[in-house]
């Protein structure tokens, strides 16, 4: 077991958004988290990343995983349209958690980042400025960065939001490669039923009533 959440309570400001939540994420599986705005999805992600404390309950990490070793794709960022950074620089920044205080990247680390780009099929974009890429390409660069930060678990916060159908499809193919070829588990927050149908092994539904949450297995025929 990679991650176990035991009777977790979470608050957003003063309001309790999640009450007494328990679930697990196993190696290589995909857990989809769905629920309306304000149901606590992003708060849950922040807690799993160790950025926020739970009001009660605990998050247990297994298999040598640490908070730093979880890859994270944040929701689409605003207002960085002119940021000067090459796709390569962005992807490599995912390696920071495992790099320690050494001020440069080793060859093995560079290789690892290039491999992440290969998994997302963006090797040809590595030397392009991030600001010149399309929305879908940017999202795949950020996914490669998240992939660099982990060997076992990725948290994705609405990765396909705002993308056109073709870009969303490319992203979905990336997610499949990450799971099937690289064996990385995914916790996917999404609003898109198509994503859930395609990727989910199990579905965690959160609601605006903090006590009403539900987890169900997806049976594939």
């Amino acid at each position: 077991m990679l991650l176990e959440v035991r009777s977790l309570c979470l608050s957003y400001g003063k309001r309790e958004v999640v009450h007494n939540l328990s679930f697990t994420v196993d190696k290589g599986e995909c857990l989809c988290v769905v629920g309306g705005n304000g149901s606590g999805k992003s708060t849950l992600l922040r807690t799993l990343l160790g950025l926020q404390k739970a009001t009660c309950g605990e998050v247990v990490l297994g298999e040598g995983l640490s908070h730093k070793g979880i890859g994270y794709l944040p929701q689409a960022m605003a207002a960085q349209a002119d940021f000067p950074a090459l796709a390569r620089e962005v992807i490599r920044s995912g390696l920071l958690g495992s790099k320690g205080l050494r001020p440069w990247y080793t060859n093995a680390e560079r290789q690892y980042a290039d491999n992440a780009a290969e998994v997302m099929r963006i090797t040809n974009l590595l030397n392009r400025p991030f600001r010149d890429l399309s929305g879908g390409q940017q999202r795949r660069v950020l996914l490669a960065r998240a992939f660099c930060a982990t060997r076992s678990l990725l948290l994705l916060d609405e990765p396909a939001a705002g993308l056109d159908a073709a870009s969303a499809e490319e992203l979905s193919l990336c997610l499949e490669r990450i799971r099937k070829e690289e064996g990385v588990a995914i916790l996917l927050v999404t609003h898109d039923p198509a994503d859930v149908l395609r990727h989910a092994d199990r579905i965690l539904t959160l609601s605006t009533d903090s006590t009403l949450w539900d987890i169900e297995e997806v049976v594939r025929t």
Partner: protein
Amino acid sequence: MMDSLLSYWEIPLFRYALFGGVLVALCAALLGTTLVLRRFSMIGDGLSHIGFGALAAASVANVLPMAVAIPVMIAAAFLLLRGSAQGKLRGDAAVALMSTTCLAAGMILTYLGGGTNVDLMNYLFGSIFSLSQKDLWLAIALASLVLPCYGLLYHRIFAVTFDEPFARATGVQAGAFQFATAVFTALTIVLGMRLTGTLLISCLLVFPTLSAMRINGSFFGVTLISAAIGVGCFLLGFVLACLYPGGLPAGASIVAVNAAAFSICAGAGEIVRRRRAHH
């Protein structure tokens, strides 16, 4: 022309201004990269006004100006950088509030303390030849702190600047960063106020980065180019101010050269973009 430069070289105050200025311009350009990209472009302007208020208070109370200005500005820089991250008072609004209040307080204190004081006027508009040997040592100390830190923490600085939540999730101590940025920015501005004056100090922080961003799309490239532009524009502006018949105010001359460099970079960047779109 070389002759007059050589004759200037004989004057200690010229050399203090030259070396001190180069170091401060370099530190300002490097810190400016992360400040501009994190949308804190106005922090330099705000801090220098706060510094002006602190200096006025020190001069009225008759204590060592730097002993008051440095701690006050470090505290203010930290509050401004942190406050807007927490979103209680938006960054630009907080800067506007604090800077005008402190500038006004400085003016009132100066007035009550016996009218306009030459030293305070120098702080407002800059007086590059007022850099003493002690200031030069302070500039050397600042640069020998900022440059190694920047080199060692370069990748972390990039990560925090590009995407703070992600950087925190990978274990970067963003709070410590904010504190270090605040301290370095405050020290750079205290020294820079002598060079260009309170009213023009922002230029040293923001112009080099904005110019570099027009012509380069990598963070590494922008960092190096902005350092080069910052130092180059300082030297050119300073020498121009000295050589111009009758002299020019050095601070304004440095800003003018920076503005010219920005126009050139913006033009060059636009031409390259159009060519690329054409092909």
